[in-house]
């Protein structure tokens, strides 16, 4: 990649939760084409880091920039290029799989009529009209993850995307991540599984559990 400025850059991030310092003075740069895996034991602050990067919470100290611009000041611009999937998949139990996905696509400026075809990509064909409350946890996550196939966002931030997803599903997602990275995007994810991706593609940020 011949990009001079990194896609996402974090400088001297410090995060404090409940009087405990999760990490401090954390700096890193994520370039187009990177797949970044955030590692660490439970409670080390992986989710907190991803929420900071998504702009959902503010760091105690430090700053995050997207293409050289602060994500706080240029929030709208950043959020156009961001796709964040948190711990909870954001799927409404009262709506069907298709309605859920159609809403997500429409609200992010996509074409909601693609919802049905996209569900086929995550193996949910035949479940389009089933209300999500009748679907499993893995299927909920698949509905949320289906957005990735239609996403134009450059930055993907995914918190435990593989939770409750079967092996084939994981392989399909990894393939998608590679394609996305090759198209000039970046993926930031947390997972406790080992990624079956070429070593040179995956960067790692390791957070340690700190007691003080």
């Amino acid at each position, binding site marked *: 990649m011949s990009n001079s400025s990194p896609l996402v850059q974090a400088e001297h991030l410090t995060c404090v939760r409940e009087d405990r310092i999760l990490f401090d003075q954390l700096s890193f740069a994520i370039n187009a084409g990177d797949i970044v895996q955030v590692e660490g034991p439970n409670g080390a602050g992986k989710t907190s880091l991803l929420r900071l990067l*998504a*702009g*959902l*919470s*503010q760091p105690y100290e430090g700053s995050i920039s997207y293409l050289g611009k602060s994500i706080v000041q240029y929030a*709208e611009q950043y*959020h*156009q290029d*961001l796709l*964040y999937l*948190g*711990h*909870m*998949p*954001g*799927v*409404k*139990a*009262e*709506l069907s799989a298709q*309605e859920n996905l159609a*809403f*997500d696509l*429409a*609200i*992010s*400026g*996509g074409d909601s009529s693609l919802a049905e075809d996209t569900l086929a990509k995550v193996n949910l064909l035949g479940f389009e009209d089933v*209300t999500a409350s009748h679907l499993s946890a893995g299927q909920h996550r698949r509905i949320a993850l289906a957005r990735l196939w239609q996403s*134009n966002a450059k930055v993907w931030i995914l918190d435990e995307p593989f939770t409750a997803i079967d092996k084939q599903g994981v392989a399909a997602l990894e393939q998608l991540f590679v394609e996305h990275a090759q198209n000039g995007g970046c993926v930031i994810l947390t997972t406790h599984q080992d990624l079956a991706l070429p070593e040179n593609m995956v960067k790692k940020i390791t957070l340690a559990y700190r007691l003080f």
Partner: protein
Amino acid sequence: MSSLSYRQTFALVLKRDLTIAFRHKDEMLNPLLFFIIVVTLFPLGIGPQANTLAKIAPGIIWVSALLATLLSLDRLFKADHNDGSLEQMLISPQPLFIFTLAKITAHWLLTGLPLILVAPILAALLYLPEQSYSALFLTLLLGTPVLSFMGAIGAALTVGVKKGGVLLSLIVLPLYIPVLIFATSAIDTASLNLPYNGQLAIIAALFFGSLTLAPFAVGAALKVSTN
């Protein structure tokens, strides 16, 4: 690519909220039933004297409407917070106030509007004088949106709190008092065949104030309570 107009975003969110509500009919009917039950209990408790009932009718109807709204507020953002859609709302490229405006509008359509529709029947039950009906209708029409808008601020502030019900009442009820005072005063004045434009103007001011300011306040509150 992301060229959704404000109007489209508003319509999408409103439609989704209404669809969800209509699939959860019990929750939707809860505030309305509460309103009807509370109002009908008063004649039973106080006795059927027309004079007494007519005198306290505006107060009963408005206090019940207020409590019925309060009952429904807790759920305004709770489900979104629990299933993660609130986070998606916060990081959407669309401005947050459109989302909150749409959600509050949906809340009013589901709780405020039904109250307005049944209020005349309940007013008949309480022997409200004939000349007060238009005042009752107008105060409810202007006042119940204020309840939804101001209540949404409290709901947004307490969305991260596990058992936020008590806190929510403490935050929201004081904000409701001006509406209650002016609405009941307007209905009382109307029963004496006097003009009640003044009270109505104040409720209208509260309505436009909360319509324009509350969506921003709710957005800010949501950001704080999910931080």
